[in-house]
């Protein structure tokens, strides 16, 4: 929903009802801002929005004191303290004891008892001594909270009786009556962050009520009115150092607040209170300061009311109407108030300046290429610096059992309020090669400021891990199936070489590689069968030992196998990947191997120069390479060479496949 529409809804809600509300004037930050509900993130003033308690880090302690300025003011009053605890990550509990949230009323009597010092004034005390709340975070952006608030009303009513002292002498004796009753209110709140810099909250106040008996009905006119109210609030940070807030209630009360951080750890606040029920419309203005040092935070505020007529501590009986008291901290009889508070954050309270905005996996993991994942990003995490200082952020990813430890990225500098993408590279262990088929694993992605060991935030991401024989279809990916150092491959290749050592001895040294390749290929003449891949979601490629054992395979399997064999005896190979345009079903792959023969001696290799290719070898020297159609090896080396040379001539020389890009040559090693 657009922000503008939300604001309109808030204003409309504020105009709609006519019931009670409560302002969280208990906390100086709350009283300075006025509109505080959407900004609750700790135990301070949590009764404005208990759902905000999920913003606590661990333990949260809080105490506050205040003094009333002007006529009727006194010394500092212990307002109360609050304690909160976040547990199991997503749950929070808080308790507030606030004996200072009270309004004592003395109704002065119009008479006095002659000759006696009896108290004739009636005293009424309205107290909100307790509040307790529980909050749960449903998602990263949505939290719910419930709270119970206790309100106590005490009436001390002086009564008298005539006592006959003697037969002729009467006296008045006091029969002071004290009445008391408690009322518990149940509130429900929800907090929602539609965006990182926007927070919304809604609170149903007094939805449930339980009142004990104890005050006779003759004092009904002194009772506070209990009605339900609905409050909406919004907070918006247009830029990191500025925070704006808005609040409205069906009780026709609202507020606007602003907080500005001119420097880190220092906050300047102001707020305007609006009352749609009683004039003036803007009935109070709040100012405040906040300063944070390590895990302490001190707040101070001053609230001044625009109408001072009945705030001097004395009011005429005609002007005193308890139904006007919607809140003990802020009502028509409250004097200007200065508050000071101290907050301490205990336990696991490390700042988490870096937040995860999103995790994106860039593809799936092929076990055959797991080594490449150490250098090639498997995904990226978008992090945001929510602090007021530049931070150096790093990210890590960990997949249980398939990684020995989390793989960390290099630190990335992030400016305040800035979001950056950090690539995630993963170092898998060998167990990943044992994954038989496609599987999905949970990866834990964490971000932290580089200077800290503990992480700031973590997120889960799903990683698709293919089976050990799955191939991503690229010739680059096929290289990872080539295993020249596999013992079975080495053994097979060396055995063939050993069997043909006599014939090798007769070959000139410059043609040795060609001869060894021919010997290797001819050893499989008649011993290999071309078999298509099993039906599979992805390309299926056998590792060389598997092909050697089964003696079957398709073009990729055979290409991989002979590439492994040739490389195991020191002959460089390259894949020729052919994907004919508009005919992807005829894609094919065959092999090139390096003869090590200089082009000057091309005649020694073949009298037909179209049967070989000149290209640079691994050493940078230009040598003669021979194409091999590996599926034809079963018919012998010469046939495989002939077929390979023909295919190369057709696709590259005639079809200009290399120039057009539908033929690619990828070096294996």
């Amino acid at each position, binding site marked *: 929903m657009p922000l503008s529409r939300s604001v309109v809804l808030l204003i409309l809600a504020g105009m709609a009802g006519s019931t009670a509300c409560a302002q969280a004037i208990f906390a100086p930050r709350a009283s300075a801002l006025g509109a505080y509900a959407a900004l609750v993130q700790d135990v301070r003033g949590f009764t404005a929005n208990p759902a905000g308690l999920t913003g606590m880090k661990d333990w949260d302690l809080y105490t506050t004191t205040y003094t009333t300025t002007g006529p009727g003011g*006194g010394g500092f009053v*212990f307002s109360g303290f609050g304690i909160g605890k976040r547990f199991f990550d997503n749950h929070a509990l808080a308790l507030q004891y606030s004996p*200072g949230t009270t309004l004592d009323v003395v109704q002065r*009597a119009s*008479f006095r008892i002659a000759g006696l010092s009896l108290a004739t004034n009636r005293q009424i005390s309205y107290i909100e001594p307790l509040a307790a709340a529980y909050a749960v975070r449903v998602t990263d952006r949505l939290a719910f909270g419930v709270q119970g608030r206790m309100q106590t009303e005490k009436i001390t009513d002086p009564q*008298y009786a005539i006592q006959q002292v003697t037969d002729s002498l*009467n006296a*008045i004796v006091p029969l002071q009556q004290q009445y008391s009753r408690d009322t518990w209110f149940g509130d429900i709140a929800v907090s929602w962050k539609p965006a990182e810099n926007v927070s919304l909250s809604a609170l149903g106040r007094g939805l449930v009520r339980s009142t004990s008996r104890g005050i006779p009905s003759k004092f009904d006119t002194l009772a506070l009115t209990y009605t339900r109210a609905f409050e909406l609030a919004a907070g918006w940070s247009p830029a990191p150092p500025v925070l704006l807030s808005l609040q409205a209630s069906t009780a026709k009360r609202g507020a606007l607040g602003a907080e500005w951080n001119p420097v880190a750890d220092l906050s300047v606040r102001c707020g305007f209170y609006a009352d749609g029920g009683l004039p003036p419309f803007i009935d109070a203005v709040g100012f405040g300061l906040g300063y944070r040092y390590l895990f302490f935070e001190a707040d101070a505020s001053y609230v001044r009311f625009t109408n001072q007529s009945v705030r001097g*501590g004395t009011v005429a009986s005609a002007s005193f109407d308890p139904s006007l008291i919607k809140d003990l901290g802020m009502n028509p009889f409250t004097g200007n108030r200065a508050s000071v508070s101290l907050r301490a954050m205990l336990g696991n309270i490390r700042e988490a300046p870096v937040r995860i905005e999103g995790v994106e996996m860039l593809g799936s993991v092929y076990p055959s290429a797991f080594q490449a994942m150490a250098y090639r990003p498997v995904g990226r995490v978008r992090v945001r610096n929510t602090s007021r200082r530049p931070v150096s952020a790093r990210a890590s990813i960990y997949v249980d059992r398939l990684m020995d430890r989390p793989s960390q990225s290099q630190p990335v500098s992030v400016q305040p309020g800035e979001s950056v993408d950090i690539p995630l590279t993963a170092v898998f262990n060998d167990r990943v090669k044992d994954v038989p088929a496609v599987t999905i694993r949970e990866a834990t992605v964490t971000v932290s400021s580089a200077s800290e060991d503990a992480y700031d935030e973590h997120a889960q991401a799903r990683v698709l891990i293919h089976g050990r024989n799955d191939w991503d279809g690229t010739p680059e990916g096929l290289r990872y199936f080539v295993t020249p150092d596999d013992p079975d491959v080495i053994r097979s290749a060396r055995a063939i070489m050993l069997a043909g050592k006599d014939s090798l001895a007769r070959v000139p040294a410059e043609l040795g590689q060609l001869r060894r390749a021919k010997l290797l290929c001819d050893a499989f003449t008649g011993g290999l069968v071309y078999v298509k891949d099993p039906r599979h979601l992805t390309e299926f490629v056998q590792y060389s030992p598997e092909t050697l054992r089964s003696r079957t395979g398709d073009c990729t399997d055979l290409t991989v196998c002979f590439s492994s064999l040739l490389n195991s005896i020191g002959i460089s190979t390259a894949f020729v990947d052919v994907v004919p345009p508009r005919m992807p079903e005829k894609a094919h792959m065959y092999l090139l191997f390096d003869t090590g023969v200089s082009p000057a001696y091309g005649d020694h290799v073949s009298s037909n120069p179209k049967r070989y290719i000149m290209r640079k070898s691994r050493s940078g020297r230009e040598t003669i390479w021979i194409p091999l159609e590996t599926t034809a090896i079963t018919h012998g080396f010469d046939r495989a060479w002939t077929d390979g040379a023909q295919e190369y001539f057709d696709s590259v020389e005639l079809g200009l496949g290399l120039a057009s890009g539908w033929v690619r040559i990828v070096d294996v090693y």
Partner: protein
Amino acid sequence: MKKLPVIFACLLFACQFGCQKPSPLTVEPPADAPAGALEVTVVSNPDTNIAVSPVDSSGLLPGDQTQYSGLFLVNTVKYDNGHGLLSVAYASAYFGDRKRPFVVNGKTLGYWGVDIMPMTTLPLKVGGIVMTRVPFKIHVGTRDTTFGYMYRAVFASLQPKSSFDWDDQQPDPIMSPTAFHDTVQTPEDLRVLAPAGGSVLSRTKALQLRWVGGGPIRIVISTYNVLTGKTRPVLQLKPDVNTGSAVIDPSLLALLPLARNYVFTFVIANRSDRLLGQQQQDRTLVQAATVYNTYVQFQ
């Protein structure tokens, strides 16, 4: 253990700066009934064997009457029962001889009324009007017994704020060695607006009293026996300042006995106190008063 300093700091903060209680909101009573402006006295009923004049006619509480040997009264008394206003103006003079008590069955019922005007050629006058000597009667059982004398004069009306001279030109050689002269000024006229005579009132609601008439005023609330016509004062209310109104708190009304009929006696009196005889007990009260009785019922 590392957290202990933090907790101590918080507690220290709270204790150091939070030792005061919030100032209460004081709700002042209405302007016509300022706080503490009404002095309430429970009326003691002294030895009621002694004959005294009822407060609704004399404007004097029984206790006040027994303090004095002599009473020289000039009163305008009004009675408002809701069916009409009856007004009576009179003067009376009585001086009791404390050495001659009237005792019946060991109880003192009164004192001999001294004839303070034995010679008809030098009569007792008030405002220049000769007072009539009448027998002083004491009620014994069902009959009245004459025990001395007293003096009375009846007027059609008394002008408010006018002076009345008591003039005893032939003093009693025993009681007073010198002639008795005194001057008293009648107070302002008194008219009670609330409660009106015949009103039915609630004990649980504040009762508004309103009147017209300046001067030091007292309001005496008495039970009233409609059969015998006798009153028994219960409370006396005395505003510090006569503003013409007062409010009686329900907690005070709760003090009243559970009788139905009451009379509110508003008294504005000018009084002087002088020693007429030789003994301290021979004190004499000279009073000019306006008394307004309004008869009401309590639910």
